[in-house]
């Protein structure tokens, strides 16, 4: 992550905690997300 200094553009946005970042590449959790995202996308496809 970049160095965050007051009043710079990168000072204000929320940044993920170490846990949030770890979960993004946690294989077990991401396998669950894989299924959820696929269901969401299929729902979108079926709307056409």
């Amino acid at each position, binding site marked *: 992550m970049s160095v*965050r200094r007051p009043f710079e553009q990168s000072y204000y946005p929320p940044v*993920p905690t170490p846990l949030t970042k770890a979960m*993004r590449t946690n294989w077990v959790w991401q396998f669950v997300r894989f299924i959820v*995202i696929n269901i969401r996308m299929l729902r979108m*496809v079926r709307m*056409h």
Partner: protein
Amino acid sequence: MARLVILGAGIAGHTAALHARRKLGEDHEVVVVSPNSRWNWIPSNIWVGVGVMTPEQVTFPLAPVYEKTGVIFRQARAVSLHPEGDEGAARPYVMVESTEPGKSGARERVEYDYLINATGPRLQFDATEGLGPEKNSLSVCTAGHAAQASEALDEAVGRMRHGEQQSFLIGTGHGTCTCQGAAFEYLFNLEFELRRRGVRDRARIVWISNEHELGDFGMGGTFIRRGGYLTHSRVFTESLYTERGVEWITRAAVKQVDRGEVHYETLDGREESIQADFAMLLPPFSGVGLRAFDRDGAEITESLFAPSNFMYVDGQYAKKPYEEWLPSDWPETYRSPRYDNIHAVGIAFAPPHPISRPMFSPSGTPIYPTPPRTGMPSAVMARQVAFNIVDKMEGREGTTRTASMARMGAACIASAGASTLRGTAVSMTVYPIIPDFQKYPDTGRDIRYTSGEIGLAGHWIKHLLHFAFMYKAKARPFWTAIPE
């Protein structure tokens, strides 16, 4: 016997050709006219641009697929439309110019009963001085451009390994660009790749775009329900840029690209410059510049095509302010209002207006994204139009299928780093693509179907989609089971 001619073999044209051929009886013809001999899964070009795929992995030759499926293929560029024929020809026709080796430049008339214009964009590098791979910046719009970007990246990494600092500028190369999503993907793949190659600490990476805020993506941004709040995509996007150490410049129109330096104007009227040892800047898009003539040879291009060279279809093109834009302005059947046997799909049709609010600098420079037409809606409208035409060719009176972007959702996976175990991608669904502030007054979209998250799962899906869409485009067994 009737003949359907499709101009363009990209995502839209190829989809229309395969579906029409599959549905039509043997006595009808489907002809595809396209200047490239190879099909390109354009979304994977960003991976070619960082060296994780080769151009051969994202393209394949079209001729064998068309031979297998019974589609007639002309490797040629359409030049002009003659929807009423002419003195010597009673049937409507398209004048095409061969791009086949050995026949290059030879002209031929291709007669049609039904025509689909799916010619996609002209990459308008000439709209900005110094822009483009033949001048001072790079692109990932074609597999060839992306391969060139990858070579430039290797050179930059080589310099960094020798201790040099390098500045990377990624984004849009003009005030009216679209396709910010593609530049976003390239930005984060590049950042990921520099980390993977161990040189990230020697790189300054800056994003530049014509968006009013980060996370606009040409669709006016979107709201997502997360952690008890409805949060704008700007917040999530700024968060990702901050996390990955990328600076950003928004509300900017690039005016000139020199070697090593890029000049831009901002929405508040400032003229600025930024150093860029490596600049990947997308060009603005226009239509490919087809002309049209009536039976007497008088030019009628202006009545078929908008000034942007995109083709008028059944949208509401009367100019009106942002506050009065309606979802019903967007086309449904993609039929030309002047000739009902001509259609335009994918990027080739003229949108009635942008999706993001138009903004102008004090000197009048337009600085706002023009509307994106991504792969999924392009393919869906192509399929629907193909089915409608098939019905007509076979003499069936059925209900006309529609594919309005105001009643269509989009699923989009934006890669943020390619690796089976450590990669990530942003997975988004948006419904509807065109915001409907009458139906959804707060956010313009249905929050139940609008979502976004980043993670490894997105990368797996993006990678699987690469193989699924290449398989489908090759018309391999059961290709119709893979949705558009």
